[in-house]
């Protein structure tokens, strides 16, 4: 039998360290898009909670660590890092391998992302556990705060190269400014 070799979306592109930031690929494992049917959100959340330990997240929030439930649009969330349980009240679509997900860490992480997104990333507005659907350069995607200087950025897999390119260019610009300021 043929064994296919899995290739991650950012294979050969990451990791990178530029200036004060590092960009690494996140292998999220199994991902499923959950879209509760009308009036079923509470029931789906309860079933999800008893099956995998996290409920259906409120808008712009990410619950849990492993597995996680990440809001990703109106009445939609991604279950990340767990097999999808039987959920009678929701449409469930396999998104494993559908997303390119990168983590950006470092003192300039906010400054780098601020060059690419109109999202208000100030710590008072966008806290750990907050997630948002927004623009990253010309792409639509998601940004999630993991810590004070740590974020996750995700776009559809087909745009992995552009995501790495845009993040690299923004990080190089920040690093160049730091050099010039010395």
């Amino acid at each position: 039998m043929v064994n296919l070799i899995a290739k991650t979306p950012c294979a050969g592109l990451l990791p990178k360290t530029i200036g004060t930031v590092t960009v690494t690929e996140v292998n999220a494992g199994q991902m499923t898009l959950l879209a509760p049917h009308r009036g079923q959100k509470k029931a789906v959340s309860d079933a999800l909670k008893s099956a995998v330990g996290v409920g259906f997240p409120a808008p712009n929030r990410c619950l849990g660590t492993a597995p996680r439930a990440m809001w990703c649009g109106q009445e939609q969330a991604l279950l990340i890092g767990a097999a999808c349980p039987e959920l009678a009240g929701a449409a469930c679509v396999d998104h494993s391998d559908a997303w390119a997900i990168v983590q950006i860490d470092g003192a300039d992480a906010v400054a780098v992302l601020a060059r690419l997104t109109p999202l208000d990333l100030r710590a008072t507005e966008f806290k750990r556990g907050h997630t948002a659907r927004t623009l990253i350069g010309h792409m639509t995607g998601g940004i999630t705060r993991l810590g004070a200087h740590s974020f996750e950025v995700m776009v559809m897999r087909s745009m992995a190269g552009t995501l790495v390119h845009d993040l690299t260019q923004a990080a190089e610009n920040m690093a160049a400014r730091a050099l010039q300021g010395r």
Partner: protein
Amino acid sequence: MRLPCPICGERDRREFYYQGHATLLDRPAADADAGAWDDYVHNRDNPAGETRDLWHHEAGCGAWIVVTRNTVTHEVLGAVLAEKAKS
């Protein structure tokens, strides 16, 4: 310019797609006369003051919203989900 998405909060205008006046929520009955359809498809007021427009939070939550704004002062007065709005 920032628009107050009822789901996502205040967001930059670039995340939204502009559709047009909220009249579009007022679809005539299928058997309405040609005049009603002409109004619905083509005829719009051009108010100096408050107006209500449909915007799509395209690069955000995906919701259609109705934004009330003032064409004279450019003030944005509020927004509601289109599914809950009465045109």
